[in-house]
């Protein structure tokens, strides 16, 4: 019996599995040699169309999906995920409907169904994934990011829907995101039973994606970089062969096929006599992070997901019996221009993952898959951090050569704000008090410099520059500033006069070169007393910028124009139209969907120093995860 099947039976005792003796001459998993399936390089028009698949868009969507805490089928996080996906699919031009489903023992959930408006004929192809996640050990409320299982498949559905629509090739395709999969395939079973939006007899194939982004072969000597399992049944053999051929023609995937379906939503279709196939990452049984809080973004390799998406998309585009797909148009049509983003881009995680793609050594640095798993775990079990800070003071006028006392005042503010001991915490409106999070991060001026010599943690340099731009020149000795101390060990803070009325700026984790890592604060916005000027004289600019440095976005999103649809990638800060300024009063309502209005008292808004006084719990989780992934050695050595 395949390992995954054994494990699944052991874990779930799920009703859709059976224990079956396998005869000695029966092939359960068949490895396909690439030469046997090669299709002379494939159709160049299809190859051209596959270039429309966007890894960055996929990661953006996946990042949002993992930000809901849990997508347990009956949870608020699942409901928010449904709303998010509805928005994305709507933006791609689809008409979106929901099918209410029951999840026995838990309550109501939903399937999300999308099709282009005006499509009259029954859909011939279905593209599916399950949107729900689960933490088996922790229960329904426990953290279950479900990055690979099945955030990757869900983000893959969104991406395929986007690309097919932009290519004018989506008319005969129905897209479905299921709930209730983890509890026993309830969403797909009830979808098939209801026949909502499709006619079983008209369906030529169902392409289900469940876990398409974890490279589980890293520890296997000589293993190919990317593998995929195409799993169907005899009824879906044609589709299995088409997918296998597409993989050979358009991807670098190492293909294994199986005709023993189980453990995902394709099984519900096959039981109903509908040809369905599961596409899943190779060696999925080696992915031990699923169904736990450890199924996190850092385990996902977007390039693998893109390869599997290419295989699936090429199969749909090349489906000869699918008259709705106009290949010539698909290959030549210009993709629709991107409209307003529907959610905030997660540059931090995106850049991190893209860096992994560009620089495999970054991943190798993390070592084996086991070590990566440990890294994931560390993202939710935070280490104590006491971060050594070096403050580089650049001054033209002597009055800007701020005192040691002013520097110490800034460190004091940081220690209060990042440990929930700030005196104004009581001013947080009652509606937001339950959401206050405690980062438990402390800061101190560095005790030793890079050579090991004792230091005050403060450097000073007289410069000739009146006002610095946001071009990082203050971070370079050759450009007139001061070089960073080793950013892997120190938080570098440059204090200088910034132009354009800018209070400060930061560099996200893995958001740029190591030598520019850190934050910049304008002299009148730094610390308390001295040069600090009202209303930014309480040291909160550094609190805000270090929030960015630790991976946080603004609570109001990243769009240059106001909107209520983008997100800061944490689930407990309300959506907010745009930044707040000054000293708002509660409630400040900017988005109708938020009953308590804006969390203007959050350090990541734009209000005056006196009006900001809290991080949220999910922001704290994000900071901790960010440090675990991107700054593993910062603040852990007590001798620095």
């Amino acid at each position, binding site marked *: 019996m395949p390992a995954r099947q054994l494990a699944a039976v052991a874990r779930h005792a799920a009703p859709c599995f059976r224990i079956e003796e396998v005869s000695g001459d029966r092939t359960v998993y068949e490895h396909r040699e690439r030469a046997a399936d090669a299709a002379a390089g494939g159709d160049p028009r299809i190859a051209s169309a596959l270039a429309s698949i966007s890894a960055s868009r996929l990661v953006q969507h996946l990042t949002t999906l993992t930000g809901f805490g849990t997508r347990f089928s009956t949870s608020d996080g699942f409901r928010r995920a449904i709303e998010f996906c509805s928005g994305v699919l*709507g*933006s791609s*031009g689809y008409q979106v409907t929901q099918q209410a489903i029951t999840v026995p023992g838990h309550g109501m959930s939903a399937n999300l169904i999308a099709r282009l408006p005006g499509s009259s004929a029954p859909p011939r192809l279905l593209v599916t994934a399950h949107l729900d996640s689960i933490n088996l050990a922790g229960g329904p409320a426990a953290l279950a990011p479900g990055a690979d299982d099945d955030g990757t498949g869900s983000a893959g559905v969104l991406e395929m829907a986007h690309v097919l629509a932009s290519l004018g090739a989506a008319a005969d395709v129905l897209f479905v995101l299921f709930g209730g999969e983890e509890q026993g395939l309830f969403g797909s079973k009830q979808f098939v039973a209801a026949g909502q939006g499709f006619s079983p007899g008209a369906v030529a194939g169902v392409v289900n994606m469940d876990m398409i982004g974890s490279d589980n072969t890293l520890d296997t000597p000589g293993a190919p970089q990317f593998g995929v399992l195409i799993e169907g049944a005899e009824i879906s053999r044609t589709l299995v062969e088409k997918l296998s051929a597409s993989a050979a023609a358009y991807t670098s995937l190492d293909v294994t096929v199986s005709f023993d379906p189980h453990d995902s939503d394709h099984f519900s279709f096959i039981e109903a006599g509908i040809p369905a196939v599961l596409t899943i990452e190779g060696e999925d049984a080696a992915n031990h992070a699923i169904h736990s809080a450890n199924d996190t973004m850092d385990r996902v390799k977007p390039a693998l997901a893109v390869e599997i998406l290419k295989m699936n998309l090429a199969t749909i585009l090349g489906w000869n019996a699918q008259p709705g797909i106009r290949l010539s148009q698909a290959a030549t049509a210009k993709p629709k*221009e*991107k*409209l*307003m*983003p*529907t959610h*905030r*881009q997660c*540059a931090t995680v995106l850049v991190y993952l893209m860096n992994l793609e560009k620089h495999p050594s970054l991943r190798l640095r993390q070592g084996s898959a086991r070590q990566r798993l440990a890294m994931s775990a560390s993202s939710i079990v935070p280490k104590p951090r006491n971060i050594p800070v070096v403050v580089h003071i650049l001054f033209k006028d002597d009055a800007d050569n701020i005192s040691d006392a002013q520097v110490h005042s800034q460190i004091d503010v940081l220690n209060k704000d990042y440990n929930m001991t700030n005196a104004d915490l009581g001013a947080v409106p009652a509606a937001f008090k339950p959401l206050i999070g405690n980062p438990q991060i402390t800061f101190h001026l560095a005790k030793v410099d890079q050579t090991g010599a004792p230091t005050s943690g403060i450097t000073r340099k007289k410069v000739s520059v009146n006002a610095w731009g*946001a071009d990082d020149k203050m971070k370079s000795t050759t450009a007139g500033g001061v070089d960073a101390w080793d950013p892997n060990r120190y938080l570098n803070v440059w204090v200088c006069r*910034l132009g*354009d*009325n*800018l*209070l*400060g*700026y*930061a*560099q*996200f984790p893995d*958001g740029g070169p190591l030598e520019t890592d850190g934050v910049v604060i*304008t002299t*009148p*916005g730094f610390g308390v007393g001295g040069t600090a*000027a009202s209303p*930014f004289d309480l040291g909160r*600019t550094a609190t*805000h*910028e270090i929030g*960015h440095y630790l991976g946080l*976005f*603004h609570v*109001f999103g*990243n*769009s*240059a*124009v*106001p*909107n209520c649809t983008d997100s800061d990638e944490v689930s407990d800060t309300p959506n907010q*139209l*745009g*930044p707040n*300024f000054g000293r708002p009063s509660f409630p400040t309502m*900017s988005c109708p969907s938020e009953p308590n209005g804006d969390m203007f008292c959050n350090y990541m808004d*734009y209000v005056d120093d006196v009006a900001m006084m809290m991080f949220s719990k999910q922001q704290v989780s994000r900071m901790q995860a960010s440090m675990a992934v991107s700054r593993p050695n910062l603040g852990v050595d007590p001798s620095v």
Partner: protein
Amino acid sequence: MIGRTWRRPSGGARPFTSAAGPMTLSRGGTETLSLQPDGRFVMRAAGPDDRPRDIVGSWRAVDDGAELQSDDGSLRAVARLTAEDQLFVTPVEPKK
């Protein structure tokens, strides 16, 4: 509206103004919008890490203002004069 540089303290919900004079400190600095006669625009706005970034694109006249479309697809909005010296920029809703 055209051929001028509009400014505001950072933040999408505030109007731009062409008024001269000092601007106040802001967490994202001063944002600017220049609508050029050749149909191009440049908006300098606070980025997600507060570092200013330039958004460039083209504009076209619409009934009550100018519709802006950035080259990278990140911005689609309409700029409208709501008073003699107040320019509001609001997003265009995605087409369904």
